[in-house]
């Protein structure tokens, strides 16, 4: 697999719009709900269009636009998105009106915008893209599914550009549901070092990360993706270790070739158990940067990790707020993500 990342756009809990300072002011926020730092959307989308857009549509469209600008493209050959939750704000709005009004006096707007493919469709509409258009929703593997599709698309269609994005919104009603379901970490249990957690639960995050991918390297190329793989059900520590060995072997890499590891620890003591064992046993000599204490846990947090990895590789610099004294060459970055200790994925990002 050789995929070049020729443009990126990321909206997250950190200031990821300002790429020049590159997380220079990043902070670990000890809060259970990590909302996105939103740009002034008017800089990107006409105000009359913005009014009709829900939170996730705004985040998605603007992150997509930024990635296209970076890649110096106005259109693409495919738009592929992944979202675990879909358009929850509109879904919740329509569902609550059905319940409150007993199925009467409803308006269609929120229903129309509630389908998971709304953002991919809206991007197509905005840039007038009649090409391939796909939306995946597989909880913690939603973004990776999109990425695997992009890889196949680039194989099938030489000299093409694919826009791929992972996005999820953390609106209040969803957060409330997760609190009631017991998935959110209690305020008093939140600590800055996510890997040292001794308690259950995670902090909910949100964001949209988009990438313009191609099999052609050009002057805007930032990094390359060497491999991506998903696992629907990992059966323990040994299984993860075996799968990782196979994955690295396929890429002709060994553990020693990994300059930096980004593990998807969510802060939940149970869910992180296998990852922590893995980090300790296999990567004791490898530099590690955790990312979910920056962006929060959500279905497509791995898209944020890919943005982080590709920017680190491009700049050959790890933000000081994440790691002090790093002067090594950053050749290969491995992302190992997990969602609820069931769905796992590997992504390998390399310099080029």
């Amino acid at each position, binding site marked *: 697999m050789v995929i070049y990342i020729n443009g990126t756009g990321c909206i997250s809990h950190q200031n990821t719009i300002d790429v020049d300072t590159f997380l220079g002011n990043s902070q670990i926020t000890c809060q259970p709900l990590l909302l996105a730092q939103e740009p002034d959307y008017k800089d990107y989308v006409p105000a009359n269009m913005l009014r009709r857009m829900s939170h996730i549509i705004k985040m998605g469209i603007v992150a997509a636009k930024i990635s296209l600008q970076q890649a110096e493209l106005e259109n693409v050959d495919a738009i592929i998105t992944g979202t675990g939750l879909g358009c929850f704000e509109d879904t919740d709005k329509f569902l609550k009106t059905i319940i409150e009004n007993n199925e009467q006096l409803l308006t269609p707007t929120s229903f129309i915008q509630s389908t998971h493919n709304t953002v991919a469709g809206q991007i197509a509409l905005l840039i007038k893209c009649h090409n391939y*258009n796909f939306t995946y929703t597989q909880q913690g593997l939603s973004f990776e599914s999109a990425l695997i599709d992009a890889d196949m698309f680039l194989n099938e269609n030489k000299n093409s550009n694919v826009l791929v994005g992972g996005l999820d919104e953390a609106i209040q009603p969803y957060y409330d549901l997760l609190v009631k*379901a017991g998935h959110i970490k209690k305020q008093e249990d939140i600590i800055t070092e996510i890997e040292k957690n001794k308690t259950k639960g995670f902090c909910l995050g949100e964001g949209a990360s988009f990438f313009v991918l191609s099999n052609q390297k050009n002057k805007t190329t930032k990094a390359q993706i060497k491999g991506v793989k998903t696992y629907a059900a990992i059966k323990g520590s040994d299984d993860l270790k075996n799968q990782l060995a196979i994955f690295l072997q396929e890429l002709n890499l060994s553990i020693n070739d990994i300059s930096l590891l980004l593990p998807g620890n969510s802060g939940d003591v149970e869910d992180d158990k296998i990852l922590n064992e893995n980090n300790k046993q296999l990567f004791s000599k490898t530099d590690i940067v955790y990312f979910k204490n920056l962006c929060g846990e959500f279905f497509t947090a791995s898209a944020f990790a890919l943005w982080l990895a590709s920017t680190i590789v491009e700049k050959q610099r790890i933000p000081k707020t994440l790691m002090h004294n790093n002067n090594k060459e950053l050749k290969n970055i491995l992302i190992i993500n997990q969602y609820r200790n069931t769905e796992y994925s590997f992504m390998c990002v390399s310099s080029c």
Partner: protein
Amino acid sequence: MVFVTGIGTISAIGKNVSETLSSLLESRTGIGKINHLQTIHKDNYVAGEVNYSLQELENLAGLKNSNYNRTTLLSLLATQEALTSAGIKDASTYRTGFISASSVGGMSHSELLYKDFLEHNPHENFIDTHYTGAHATDVAKHFGITDYVTTISTACSSAANAIMLGARLINNNILDRVIVGGADALCKFTFNGFNTLMILDKEWCKPFDNNRKGLNLGEGAAYLVLESERVVKAENKKIIAVLSGYGNANDAFHQTASSPDGQGAYAAMQKALEVANFFSNKIDYINAHGTGTANNDSSEAAAIQNIFKKNIPPFSSTKSFTGHTLAAAASIEAVISILSIQNNTIFPNLNCVTPMQDTTLFPVTSLQKNTEINHVLSNSFGFGGNCSSLIFSRN
């Protein structure tokens, strides 16, 4: 080449492939009075319900206290039949994937519990099964499929994209075998959604009729087993059909409405023909998207006209049997397309009497037996401009 070696389905016209075929051969619609969906509109509308309660579906699946919602059970039942028909007992022999499609996932369950959940102390944690991809996780787990699991949600074209993705994963040598399809259960959420859009017909839908008033909603699931040439040879598999073409495009016209000339539909059909690598005149039958809405049917007719020019193949919308089953529609219609090839029969478009004024196209309105059917084009279009076409061929 990608081969179909197993099929399974459940919908308003039957709980398996053989019941489905009987209903089609007898021109017996499954659309009728609403019995299971608890909506205030139930006495004023008809729908294509799967005529089993949640408990009955669980019994059919041979499960007890599974806690599965309606979408998951429909998905599981159709997958079970598809695997059995393909003679697959062990999903771990080859690199095997499960690709499902759904528009609302666990909504039929969530919408009943939402208020209570927010207002009181929850007894049941429905949010974990609400996610649209959750049914795929459960069904894949049930059958021991772990190599690749995902769900597509591109509104009413979802299952066509699941089928297409499966074929591409085989063609790209990522998987050897993949179960592809979709499932959607009727729920108040979608029922009221389509109702506010004023595109529900209160009576039987009349696809491609000049006086059509809208669609009837339905529910169900269908899955195909796709296998590579290598597996088919190694296992000496009986081939049911070949998936010879697939195309995906975006109309990029409006969030919900189709463009008047069906640009996206045209592009999807064109791409499917290119992948199949044959001319449009080889298509013997089109299983149309044909929802019965004013907008879809005239847009689709225009696109078909533009592709096929003077040689319009026979076409029909079998949504007049099943109702519009949303994300499952393309997979149910894929099964019907394959049945059409197997039986050399064109199943009719029910309730269509008056030709549309803006086109010369008119569907097949009565059962056509003994018609040689070698290649079937199946269309599916959805919100967000998503348009997909598939071509199934006789092996």
